[in-house]
């Protein structure tokens, strides 16, 4: 089974700095980490490899220092790591990111399964996975909480929905995005770290993957950030006085006057005449 895991580097802190000109986030000089959802994606891929055999490739589009992050995926057990890195990729929105990743994956050749995180915690868009599946012409499923069955032809997954769950089967090759609940990621072993030292991360430029300059980076991004602002969250909350039951009765009264509680039991509801 050939499995590809898409991983993204995200800032470790939620403090953000912006490039005023392009409206894009300045990523340099901020401590970074592997997007947490992508660690679940990688873990799931490694487990599949352990039971089914095959190989796991990690791929990322990012600045050159993302190579360190990819090294860490090798230490965890990935067989190969690809970094798409080129100034021409900079400023990409989800469409341009998906296009670039698709080009990189095309160059890798055939695959059976691509696993992405549900979303990246910096942008929270959850768009790259489905967008990438479309570019590659394979089916996708988001919010996968469990892989129930998989063989060379198909994968059956439990997907978390708004109202519950569903079981969905996809023909391979396919792409899934995974939620946190799917597994508990492993920690790197000493042996893994040592092995990773000798394994190179493959660097590919836009030209290496034959990417059309019109479809990558800022140029290939239909969306533009026109302004950003810090939301006003600060609020002076109203506090109730007294012991637990005094506070409780004041709150119930207030909620009731705000119309947030249903009609009193035994009281008249609107449609009774």
């Amino acid at each position, binding site marked *: 089974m050939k499995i590809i895991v898409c991983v993204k580097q995200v800032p470790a802190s939620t403090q953000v700095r912006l490039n005023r000109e392009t409206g894009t986030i300045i990523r340099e000089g901020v401590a970074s980490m592997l997007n947490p959802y992508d660690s679940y994606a990688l873990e799931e891929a490694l487990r599949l490899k352990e039971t089914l055999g095959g190989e796991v490739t990690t791929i990322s589009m990012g600045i050159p220092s993302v190579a360190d992050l990819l090294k860490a995926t090798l230490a965890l057990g990935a067989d190969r790591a690809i970094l798409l890195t080129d100034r021409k990729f900079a400023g990409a929105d989800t469409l341009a990111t998906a296009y670039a990743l698709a080009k990189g994956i095309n160059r890798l050749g055939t695959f059976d399964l691509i696993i992405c995180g549900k979303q990246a915690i910096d942008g929270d868009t959850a768009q790259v996975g489905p967008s990438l599946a479309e*570019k590659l012409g394979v*089916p996708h499923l988001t919010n996968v909480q469990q892989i129930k069955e998989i063989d060379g032809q198909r994968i059956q997954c439990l997907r978390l929905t708004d*109202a519950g769950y569903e*079981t969905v089967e996809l023909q391979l090759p396919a792409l899934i995005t995974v939620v946190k609940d799917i597994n508990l990621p492993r920690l790197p072993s000493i042996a893994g770290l040592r092995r990773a030292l000798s394994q190179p991360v493959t660097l590919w430029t836009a030209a290496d993957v034959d990417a059309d300059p019109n479809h990558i980076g800022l140029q290939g991004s*239909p969306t*533009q950030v026109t302004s950003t602002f810090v939301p006003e969250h600060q609020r002076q909350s109203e*506090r109730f006085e007294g012991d637990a039951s005094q506070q409780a009765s004041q709150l119930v009264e207030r909620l009731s006057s705000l119309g*947030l509680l249903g009609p009193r039991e035994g009281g008249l509801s609107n449609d009774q005449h």
Partner: protein
Amino acid sequence: MISIRVDQNRCVACGQCVEACPFGQIQLEMDVATIGDRCTLCGSCISACPLEAIELEGAQPVANTMTDHRGILVWAELSGGQVKPVTFELLGEARRLAHQLGVPVAVALLGASTSSAASDCIKYGADLVYLVDDARLALYNDEIYAAVMEQIIRMYRPEILLMGATTYGRSLAPRLASRLNTGLTADCTQLAIDTEKRLLLQTRPAFGGNLMATITCPQRRPQMATVRPGVMKALPPDADRQGQVIVPPVEIPQTSKTRVLEVIQLQGDQVDLTAAEIVVAAGKGIGSAANMKLIAELAQLLGGVVGATRPVVDAGWISYSHQIGQTGKTVSPKLYIACGISGAVQHTAGMSGAETIVAINKDPDAPIHRIAHYSLIGDVIDIVQALIAELKKR
């Protein structure tokens, strides 16, 4: 004038375009594809051709241009045959935007036996309903829905397409935007029109809610956005509103690589958190798994649903599907009661859109009080028990 052309030297009559054409306008004649005169220039064949032998002449090289896209289209999401509230909220918002643009509001209604849903959409603000009613659309399926939506968009060319930022909406929208090579903004909480440039201004939170960004899509159409449920206001339904139901000539794929085998809708206290009007959420401060019962009882008395913070889920006190926050669900209920929750940004990212927030916490300086409207300071269990007693008196 834009016209479509087949490069006879490149075409090998493989027939992919014949299959791809939603209007049955392509035929293979003498080893080359020919395009009939009822071609709508939708471009489906262009993306289907493996040899790049079909091109639009007089058009930009990128297939998606802004020419003659007009109107607002809303994707109507159904759940158990009923239109989801988020659709009505989107229709309310679409009406407001459409008024500024001077265009109609349409909805794309895909499903099985959905004719009553069509009249509901009209009551809530749709001028036009594109109704695709077919047994193959009974269950949501990314592939089939994307194929049908693509045809509707290519036929009617809306300038704006809105979808709910629900599980399905956030799966379908990026697939569709990628196919149409247009821009998509996820999980918007605010929309506006730049009337001068006729642009949709799409505002959304990023970085766990620490930053708001306004995003536009100046060059491609439709401008696509998913919008958080519970944020926009639905109009009061008007039974006298007039609208038109249109059955578009779409082709529904016969086969799909995606098969939905089973759908499990949770019942009772596990109903849809994202659509709930009242959420009572438990944090680590409730102390033990046993106290979840009290939280559930309070939720039940209020007619609400139980949510939780990540440590509560990690401790196994409740399942992950109840987790609210950056790595869980996003909720925007009318009332949110935070019980023993500190208010870390990763949690508040998923609930700060609630209309009224009540915080119950023994620490008067806990960050949750800074986003709460009402604060109750004291032992959460004592207060929850008092609330239960108070509500039972009513």
